[in-house]
């Protein structure tokens, strides 16, 4: 799965830690970056690469919420509904987004563009409500209008 350059990168990462197994999280991040999610095959590959049991890798992947266990849409929208966001309209935004896109949690739009998830506090409490996209960029101080604009913008990016 990994290229020569990526394998060299992994060797470098391994040197940062006292045990090879410690590079599991960075390796899983690299896999997800490449594939968009972490499949059973990817987990076997990571297990082999670091010489640890597959079951161990499965245990780690299933523990952390940011590792995707299923494929997501091209734009995976993560809307925070924790208490600070809730007080400023996090749920309203989440429900609006679900309705607009016609999907619920764990679902992907039929064109494969969008998927949605309700997430726990992302440390954006003063700029609520907010949304993270694809585990990366934050979009803060959202309103329904701003959300609509973002969706249009994403559609054009493809």
């Amino acid at each position, binding site marked *: 799965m990994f290229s020569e350059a990526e394998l060299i990168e992994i060797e470098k990462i391994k040197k*940062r*830690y*006292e*045990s090879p*197994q*410690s*590079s*599991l*999280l*960075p390796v*899983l*991040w690299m896999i997800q970056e490449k594939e968009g999610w972490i499949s*059973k095959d990817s987990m076997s590959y990571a297990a082999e690469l670091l010489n640890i049991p597959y079951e161990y890798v*499965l*245990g*780690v992947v*299933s*523990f*952390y*919420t*940011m*590792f995707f*266990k*299923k494929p997501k849409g091209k734009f995976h929208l993560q809307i925070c*509904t*924790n*208490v*600070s966001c*809730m*007080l*400023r309209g996090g749920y309203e935004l989440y429900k609006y987004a679900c309705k607009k896109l016609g999907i619920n949690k764990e679902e992907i739009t039929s064109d494969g563009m969008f998927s949605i998830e309700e997430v*726990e*506090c*992302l*440390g*954006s*409490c*003063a*700029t*609520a409500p907010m949304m*993270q996209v694809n*585990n*990366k*960029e*934050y979009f803060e101080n959202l309103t329904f209008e701003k959300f609509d604009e973002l969706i249009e913008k994403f559609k054009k990016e493809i």
Partner: protein
Amino acid sequence: MTKIILKDIDDLNTLEVYEANGGFSALKKVLKEMKADEVIEEVKKSGLRGRGGACFPTGLKWSFMPKVTDKPKFLCCNGDESEPGSFKDREIFERNPYQFLEGTLIACYAMGIKTAYIYIRGEYYRWINIIEECINQLYKKGYIGKNVAGSSFSTDIYIHKGAGAYICGEESALMSSIEGQRGYPRVKPPFPAQFGLWGYPTTINNIETITNIPEIINRGSKWFASVGEPKHPGTLLFGISGHINKPGVYELETGTPLMTIINEYCGGVWRGKSLKAVIPGGSSVPPLTRDEALKAKMDSESLKEFNSAIGTAGIIVMDQDTDLLEVLTRITYFYFHESCGQCTPCREGCGWMLRILRRISEGKGRMSDLDLLISVADNIEGNTICALGDAAAWPVKWTIRKFRGEFESKIQKEEIELPNINKVHSIRHTDYYT
């Protein structure tokens, strides 16, 4: 108002400006003039206490690290920052990253540490990139790596990216996560200073705590101890959110009255409404009623009077129309979701509390449910490996105690027959691959 971290200097986040404003003078001072023990002594005298919620004296923590040992030693900087209502570390990464990294280097020198890990939550993609770039700069400039700033001291700093788990902010779970495991907290003792990362001596400090260090060295422990409340000196980065006009992060001295923060700095409760309740230190600490908020001063000692705590200084303001049952249910859902599942009281108790709160929301509550909730909370508190159990129990216990009338008003008068459901849950053990 004294500023220690978020100073009013433009572009302080660039290395040139940081150096031009006295940056790395503290590091050079300790490398040239101070022995490691003297640095620890200075931090002890400053009275600096951890900013991650437990308020443990930092100098004392550092002194627990073995002085003479042939084992490697490690420092972990805790930037997991997942407590709802807390968003201060990202402000440090964004506005004063080099002071944080200078503090990290000084801490490494003081404890004789050659490897430091900065644990940053995976969601902070943008801030991870910022710190990564800063570290690269400092390697190039010779501040990190072999022979720090031309001295005989060498140290490396690495970022470890989390992957979405609140529990990894707990120090022993954080170590599990760095070791590439599920983020399970560990039983203490042994404490990390004896048996930490890979069994070696380790110290874990919050990002804000570490960022205070260079200023303590530069301006002296006496000065630092004189800022704010004597028992909890220095400044705090207050993160204010919820029903407030000007939410954001404000650096203010400890002991600042809560209402001064709300009214003078944050423009008061939004939409001209009045205050109902305030959570003073992130979602896990007991809330304050309006009357308590009027009297409260924001430091760890003063808040004890109201059975609350300073936590991470994440202040959540709630106006008169807030439904506290809804708030409490949401907070409880969070802890239910984030419980790692190791200890039965926390894993199952959070689920029980959530189900009881939800049935009250659905209008199926019984008057005895309120005492039942407090009883479940009492049986979680203190009976778990880590403090997540306590963090889940406190809001339930104290919100009900302090606002009992509001909860009682949600419960219908006549008794309701309930089906007997007792489903065992463990969300983080669910196999998603079925």
